[in-house]
């Protein structure tokens, strides 16, 4: 039987160029969706600040005295008496966690809800690059929101930002995002099968919220809590960023934290890709892939 000519057959061979095109297309599509809702965009750029204001006010109420924004007790475990910048930095980095968890973890479910998942998965491209595109678009939007929030915090909450700080901080954030990609991939994989992506993302958010030093130093937790915290990439990112911005340490002094972060990143990314491919095969066989 004569084989029909496939349009674009010469492009069916996967190449770096075609894969990058997939990533770019996914980024552009997702960012267009985001910009189609300007109110949503503005909301995420500003509103997360409201979530840590109660912590600041609580701290001021508890400490009191002539310098209510500084606590000697806090300095003993955190290394700095200034709990307000401590909380603010934790909240800004935590926002990367939130957008990665909810963005990536739900991205697959959103495609299923829109009815486009079947078409995406039946396309001849490498699905990993679609996921990379989704992850990158989430990171881009997270970064834009974080910059906006940071700018407000510099104005109102006494965060000091100098040029010498920015580059090492960006480096740490990139390492954090890599680790979050891996975790988000794991969530996306599980959501293929179990469909309750939102609950999984919430659960992951709770784990980060309690066991990572977002609002308090890791030493505040009991030993078992600190052990769990030490498995999370956010913990090391927070320790490193605070060390640079609040304690004025250099990047080289944080080599151990960076090394551990790299190891965690590699582990979760590998696990995420493996799990996603495995789950995709399983759900294709069961026929539940486009259910939501």
């Amino acid at each position, binding site marked *: 039987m004569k084989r029909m000519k496939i349009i674009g057959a010469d492009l069916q061979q996967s190449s770096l160029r075609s894969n990058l095109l997939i990533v770019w297309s996914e980024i552009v599509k997702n960012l267009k969706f985001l910009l*189609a*809702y*300007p*109110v*949503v965009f503005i909301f995420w750029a500003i509103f997360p600040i409201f979530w840590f204001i109660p912590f600041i006010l609580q701290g001021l109420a508890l400490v009191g005295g002539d310098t209510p924004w500084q606590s000697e007790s806090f300095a003993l475990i955190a290394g700095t008496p200034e709990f307000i910048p401590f909380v603010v930095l934790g909240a800004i980095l935590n926002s990367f966690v939130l957008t990665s968890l909810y963005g990536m973890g739900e991205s697959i479910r959103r495609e299923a809800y829109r009815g486009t998942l079947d078409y995406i998965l039946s396309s001849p491209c490498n699905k990993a690059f679609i996921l990379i595109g989704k992850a990158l678009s989430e990171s881009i939007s997270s970064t834009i929101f974080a910059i906006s929030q940071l700018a407000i915090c510099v104005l109102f909450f006494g965060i000091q930002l100098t040029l010498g700080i920015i580059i090492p901080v960006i480096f740490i954030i990139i390492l954090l995002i890599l680790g979050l990609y891996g975790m988000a991939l794991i969530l996306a994989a599980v959501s293929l099968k179990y469909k309750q992506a939102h609950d999984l993302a919430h659960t992951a958010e709770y784990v980060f919220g309690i066991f990572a030093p977002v609002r308090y130093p890791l030493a505040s937790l009991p030993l078992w809590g600190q052990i769990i915290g030490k498995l999370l990439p956010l913990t090391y990112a927070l320790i490193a960023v605070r060390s640079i911005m609040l304690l004025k340490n250099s990047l080289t002094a944080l080599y151990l934290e960076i090394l551990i972060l790299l190891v965690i990143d590699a582990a979760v990314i590998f696990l995420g890709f493996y799990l996603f491919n495995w789950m995709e095969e399983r759900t294709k066989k069961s026929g539940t892939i486009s259910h939501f």
Partner: protein
Amino acid sequence: MTKRFTQKKRRGIFGFLRREREEKRQESESSDLVVALDHIDVKVHSGELFGLLGPNGAGKTTLVKCLSTILIPDEGTAIINGFDIRSQTSMVRASLGMVVGGERTLYWKLTARDNLMYFASLYKMPRKLARRRIEELLEVMQLSDRADERLEDYSTGMRQKIAIARALLHDPPILLLDEPTLGLDPTFSRQIRNQIRELAEKYEKTILLATHYMEEADQLCDRVAIINNGKIVAVDTPDKLKTMVKETELVEIVCYSPPPDIETHLKMQCPDVKIITLVHEDEAKGTPSKIKLIGGNAEEHISTVIDMLRHRNIRISSLNIGVPTLEDVFIKLTGTGLTEGERAG
């Protein structure tokens, strides 16, 4: 009754405010407004199975929503079971049951029984009566043995049966059915149509059936209103409507592989024929195409058409004269088909 919608879409919170400002302007300028219902005036008699036949976008669903009080008309009103849809909405809702085509009108994560019990409470039925009624309806729908399964495990047709059961829970005198067989396979569609017929004949319900399926309206309805672009273009029994297309006005030629330009040539040769349409079928499966001539003196042009086809070596399978369908009536009255894409010559 008249109902208009604005065409422009505005999103978001700011979009809502912009939309409001624009609509105030548009109402006075009458631009960018879609008239979904245009001075509809129709009467449905008690115990009648009344059809509303029209293509997608004709205004059927809008009319059904207005009658069920989901939409408020811009002008005019309607009386349902003696109650005004504008001022007596509770009594209107208590007087009717509604079935809408499409899948998502029930809770898929609940069982059929749970769905019906819940809606029975919203129809203010006492619990004992609700339980008894639900058992009766499940029996009628032949779903008693699956009543305690979640709807997500049901087929589309089974869900639609539960939707019909829901509409009948409180035994309303009036039923509004909006495309009840939409998306169903022929077997389920036949079952649903039989049930509709039984509801009208045996239980003497007054039924308004909105559909774009010509056969459905033809087979079931006592009277049919043809609706297009928000206007009622004709109301009568199906038989009387079909007489609007005279036998001499309808010729159907069944043939194989007619060229696409045959339509253009025939229109030039037969200028007094209102509609000439070429309906391509799947000839690979043995279903030939049809050339339809409607209106004017179609019968007189038979020889012209046959000569043209023979000249082009097109094999003619058969020739039919007369026997109009409601779709032919629709085409004659409106110039378009019941399915989108058919246009008048």
